[in-house]
């Protein structure tokens, strides 16, 4: 990760705002956010936690959405599955996006189940032409319903299919081109997958269509030596910040969001770690 970078490119092609630095909204922080109204740029919600419920989470989201910009991030769209697209789910996403005035809606380049069964996991895609075309058609269908571009995130993966004929970044670039979708670039996932599959994160960054990137994710992971697991635990480690810095050499104007999902500390600790992004963004800007 030491190669010189080309000059940064401004903004994204969708005209979506750079929301600044946010954190993932988690239920353990509800009370703090409502009572203290901390000075944070924005929140990302896990869409699925506010679907098929009409209780406390929705009421709290309504209050938070009144005060902060919200982006929706889902885990169950299953955009790459060969099962029929769940149109009820997509319509529910649309209803939720309007209710919380979501800046954008994202999910993952993955599938979660097949044959009517749901694994509730982000399963890896075979990176083939067939999968690319299949996914692109479904992205278009989702965008038509949502009436907005869909943002797709690169997942952490632990296995690759022998049938794959392209890299993940080639797949994502082609998917953006064919479907018109945008990207949520998770730099922790780039690191995790690079460790698991043995590619250079810089090659990944060099292959990304930067005008499609509207958001970054940063997070922690667990390093098991032989491989890494995307656990969203602990402070963001240095190699992930370095990839974020490298990413900002290529793209300015994308929002940054910290995900912390295991052993979640108090709000201030999470927020402080998120704000460390400023240093790496500034370093990228000064180097550009």
């Amino acid at each position, binding site marked *: 990760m030491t190669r010189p970078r080309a000059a940064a490119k401004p903004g994204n092609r969708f005209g979506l705002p750079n929301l600044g630095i946010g954190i993932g909204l*988690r*239920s353990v922080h509800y009370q703090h956010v409502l009572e203290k109204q901390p000075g944070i740029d924005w929140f990302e919600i*896990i*869409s*699925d*936690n506010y*679907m*098929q*419920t*009409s*209780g406390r989470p929705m*009421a709290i989201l309504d209050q938070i959405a009144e005060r902060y910009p919200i982006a929706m*991030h889902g*885990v*169950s769209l*299953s955009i790459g*599955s*060969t099962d029929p697209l*769940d149109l009820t*789910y997509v319509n529910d996403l649309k209803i939720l996006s309007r209710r919380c005035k979501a800046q954008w809606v994202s999910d*993952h380049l993955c*599938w*979660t*189940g*097949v*044959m*009517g*069964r*749901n*694994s*509730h*996991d*982000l*399963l890896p895609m*075979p990176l083939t032409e*067939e*999968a690319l075309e299949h996914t692109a058609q479904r992205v278009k269908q989702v965008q038509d319903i949502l009436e907005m571009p869909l943002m797709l*995130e690169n997942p*952490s993966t*632990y*296995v*690759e*299919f*022998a*049938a*794959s004929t392209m890299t993940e970044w080639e797949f994502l670039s082609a998917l953006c081109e064919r479907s018109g979708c945008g990207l949520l670039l998770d730099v922790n996932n780039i690191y995790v997958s690079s460790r*698991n*599959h*043995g590619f250079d994160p810089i090659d990944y960054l060099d292959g990304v269509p930067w005008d499609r990137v509207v958001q970054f994710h940063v997070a922690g992971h*667990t390093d*098991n030596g*032989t*491989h890494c*697991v*995307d*656990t*969203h635990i602990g402070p963001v480690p240095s190699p992930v910040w370095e990839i974020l810095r490298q990413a900002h050499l290529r793209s300015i104007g994308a929002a940054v969001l910290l*995900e912390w*999902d*295991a052993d979640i500390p108090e709000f201030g600790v999470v927020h402080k770690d998120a704000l460390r992004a400023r240093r790496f963004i500034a370093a990228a800007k000064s180097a550009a």
Partner: protein
Amino acid sequence: MSGKKTPTASGPAPTAGGPAEILHFERASATPSAEPAVRTSRRTAATVTKRSSAVSRRGAAARPAPAPAVALAADPGLDHLQRAFHGIITSPRRLTACCGTPAHDGELLTLSPEQLGLFKAADNLPVIERLDVYHYAYKARLIDCLADDYPTVKHALGAAAFDALCAAVIEHRPSRGPNLNVYGRALLDHCREDALRLPSHAFITELATLEWSMTEVFHAEAAATFSLEQLRAIPMEQWAAMTFAPSQTVRIHRFAYPVNAYLQAYRDEQEPPVPRAKASATAVYRMGFKIWRMDLTPPMAVLLEALFAGTALAPALDAMGAAYPDQPGLEASVMTWFSEWVRSGFFALQIDA
């Protein structure tokens, strides 16, 4: 745990405490593989033996060589790959890449070279261990979800029996929807159909019924409810023919066991034994965003059940009187009961007079 309301004349004091206070993790999250990491770290020392016997037989020090990839004649296609992958990671059996071990065949899913050949081999981690990350996460996530919905059932059964119950639920009733908020229903359905012989099965099923009600009420849509002022404004002559619609945020249960008392004892950090059969009735309801449980006397339960079934007040009172002829004067208490039930939001604002 939250406090108790002031006891009222209508019956035992209702008790607060529901799923909102016991959610231990974000139901849906983008960390699908959080658990395998924990598992891996926990098994670093003694651990490898817990993995597939094929691996353990080689010993902890010797990492198994990557399985040889089998060249495929052609791309098997997206649908084939997804079905094959899904079948592997959702298997109730442990994964192994090795043939043999006939003594354990029932516990192992031995992947063929053709199956392993669907995936790229790499030096840093064998394919079987890569697949195991997903295989483990699938079951762990659903067990976490069920444990979150049924903490008292887990306590009553013990961790090992609860995990066995969850494994059976996951195998026979896999999740078929996108949202984990509703998956917990599968455990209750499984108990009710007696698909697994559990110790204290009847009690466990009733306990699961109570806990699932709390989750249902937590997620239910709150609607306008009938107020005390509206109740008092109704002319007496209209009462006999009135019907009352139940609120979406209330459930009434009659049990053969004192399950609410057991649940409360567990929440009070006691170590309650599985109780003997003793009839009980409990209302589970939500006020604001807090879940409450109210024990009901038998006549109360009969009256509420009749009303919730759409019976008009007069015949519902008749049914109660007929069921408890040895308790004269019950009707004199009805106004007090109603006041408490209305205050607690039991009735939706839909009245036929």
